[in-house]
């Protein structure tokens, strides 16, 4: 597991990051460093943090629209930095539907057709399960320190804690749609916010952590909301019901056959 290249990721993955990022043991190097920390190190620390850890959680995802709302209950398993399995538990109509992510590649399984389908790159910007998260938001665990330039914009205070505001700009060669992202990371690695700007510098969507609670023994972003700037009144909120960090999850849980057969996890 530690044979992975070092320093690979950091792109916040709203749902999963929340779960995974916090999983880390306390005391990232950057967080405890005095003065102004090196943003790249900060980001790298956050990544190293959840690499090699695992989590098993149940979250509620509420998709809100002005005339309509619906809530899904999801079980999310993560292992290391690049394995994630999301399974829909409720509502009944969608139960069993799963999404598997391994190293940035995404597969979807629908029990209705009993078929595993690989999500093509062209669809990574489509909404994930009808929410305000795109497939990319869920999948891109792979976009990294090396592919972005990081800059510490400032340090804010939040209830006695420091919050590092880091601006990450993709390098020219990075295959990303965003022109700029701004991430707020609390000194205990809890992600407080993630803003996505387009190539023209306009804010397109933003994710906010609305509630931080100690869950599974660690401070956890227990409630997060993703909003698109252009569609006020539309948002998707993720609430963590329960989470266990460091759970022993076999790698075999992150395979296509496990995706197809829910009993395996």
């Amino acid at each position, binding site marked *: 597991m530690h044979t992975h290249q070092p320093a690979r990721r950091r792109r916040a993955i709203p749902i999963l990051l929340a779960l995974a990022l916090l999983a880390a043991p306390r005391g990232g190097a950057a967080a405890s460093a005095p003065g102004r920390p090196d943003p790249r190190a900060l980001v790298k620390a956050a990544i190293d943090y959840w690499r090699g850890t695992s989590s098993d959680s149940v979250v509620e995802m509420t998709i809100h629209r002005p005339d309509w709302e*619906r809530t899904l209950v999801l079980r999310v398993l993560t292992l290391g930095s690049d394995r994630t399995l999301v399974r*829909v538990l409720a509502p009944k109509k*969608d139960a069993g539907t799963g999404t598997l992510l391994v190293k940035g590649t995404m597969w979807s399984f*629908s029990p209705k*057709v009993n*078929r595993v*389908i690989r999500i093509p790159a062209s669809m990574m910007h489509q909404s994930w*399960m*009808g929410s305000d998260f795109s497939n990319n938001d869920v999948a891109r665990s792979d976009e990294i320190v090396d592919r972005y330039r990081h800059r510490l914009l400032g340090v804010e205070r939040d209830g006695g804690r420091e919050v590092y505001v880091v601006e990450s700009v993709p390098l020219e060669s990075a295959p990303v749609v965003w022109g700029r992202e701004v991430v707020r990371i609390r000194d205990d690695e809890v992600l407080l916010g993630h803003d996505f700007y387009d190539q023209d510098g306009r804010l397109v969507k933003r994710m906010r952590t609305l509630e931080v609670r100690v869950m599974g023994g660690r401070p956890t972003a227990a409630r997060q909301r993703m909003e698109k700037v252009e569609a006020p009144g539309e948002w998707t909120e993720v609430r963590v019901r329960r989470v266990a960090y460091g759970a022993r999850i076999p790698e075999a849980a992150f395979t296509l056959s496990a995706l197809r057969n829910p009993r395996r996890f």
Partner: protein
Amino acid sequence: MPILVRLAWRNIWRNRRRTWLTLAAIAFGAGLLVFNIGLQMGSYAMTIDNTVRIFYGHLQVQRAGYLDAPKMRTAVARVRELADRIGRVPGVAAAAPRAYGFALASSATRSYGIQVVGVAPRREPGVSNIPGLVRRGRYLSGDHAMEAVVGRRLARNLHLDVGGELTLLGTGRDGSVAAVAVPVAGIFETGSAEVDRGFVEIPLGTFQEVFSMDGAGHAVVVRGRGVAELGNLERRVRAALPPGEDLVVLTWDRLLPGMKELIDLDFASSWFFYAALVVVITFSIMNTFLMSVLERTREFGLLLALGMRPRRIGAMVLLEALVLTLLGLCLGECLGVAVNAWFYVHGFSIPGMEELAAHFNMPSAIRPRFTPFTLGSGPAAVFAAAMLSALYPALRARRLRPLEALKAA
């Protein structure tokens, strides 16, 4: 007849050969304009009719806002009933309900994002050519049949043939997962890469079940008798919409903005040609008048000496121009209309076009259009230009002094 008109008439025919030549120039120019514009409009109308007949219809009724932001939830309730209602509107040749969705289409090995269209199999042939363009297999059989027809390029991309299984995975109207696996009943080819690569049609009933539509759809597609009658059609359909449902009528130019732009661009470029034609005709007319005024300087001098007002002379020259131009335009109009009428009956077609058209289930010949615009705009432009060009000789005639004029060679 006023004396001035009689004088003008006689003057025109004093040099018959020159007059006929000028008339020929005017008539030819005007006739060419009438013919060309009529044919051009006809070809646009045909292009539009053919294109909208592939899939989009002359117009569609949708929920307001759907076109700009196509969301599943921006749906038309009870879309079948609405289609029935619109189908009874006079001038509507066919109306068919549809539902649109986005899905991931996959076969055993590959997947692509595509547009899924739920169609009423019996109604669809009235508004779309796709049912008639099925090259392999057959079209959809029933409203709730579990089957699909796909475009040829998509079939090739997915390595699918008739009988193969196509899996569709998308999001339903209520946000739930919409998934279905259906056998491919047929493969169509429209010639439009966009359609052949990105469309899957399934029966509307099946669509509504899979995507949790609860009887709703996204559009009623309407075909009228032709683009020519679109204005009336649009008004009538709008009047027939049930009140209070936030529905809008969208014509083909809104549905296919790219095509509208293409036509506008093409039309703009032909303006240069028409303008050049008008300029050439104008010079020929101007030449005639100027010559005739210069030739008749002595004569005008005599008239002035006899007490005729310079203004009357100018008016007479203008009148001559007017009569000559109108005569030419009449001839030209007849010529243009005659040629267009001939092509209207026999059809104007380019070699090779017929075969191609037959392949794609389309009419093969262009028929010129007859509208006030196609009939009038060319002659009107020639008329304006001719009158403008006659001004100079007329003004010249007005400025003549009797003595000098009489002395002129």
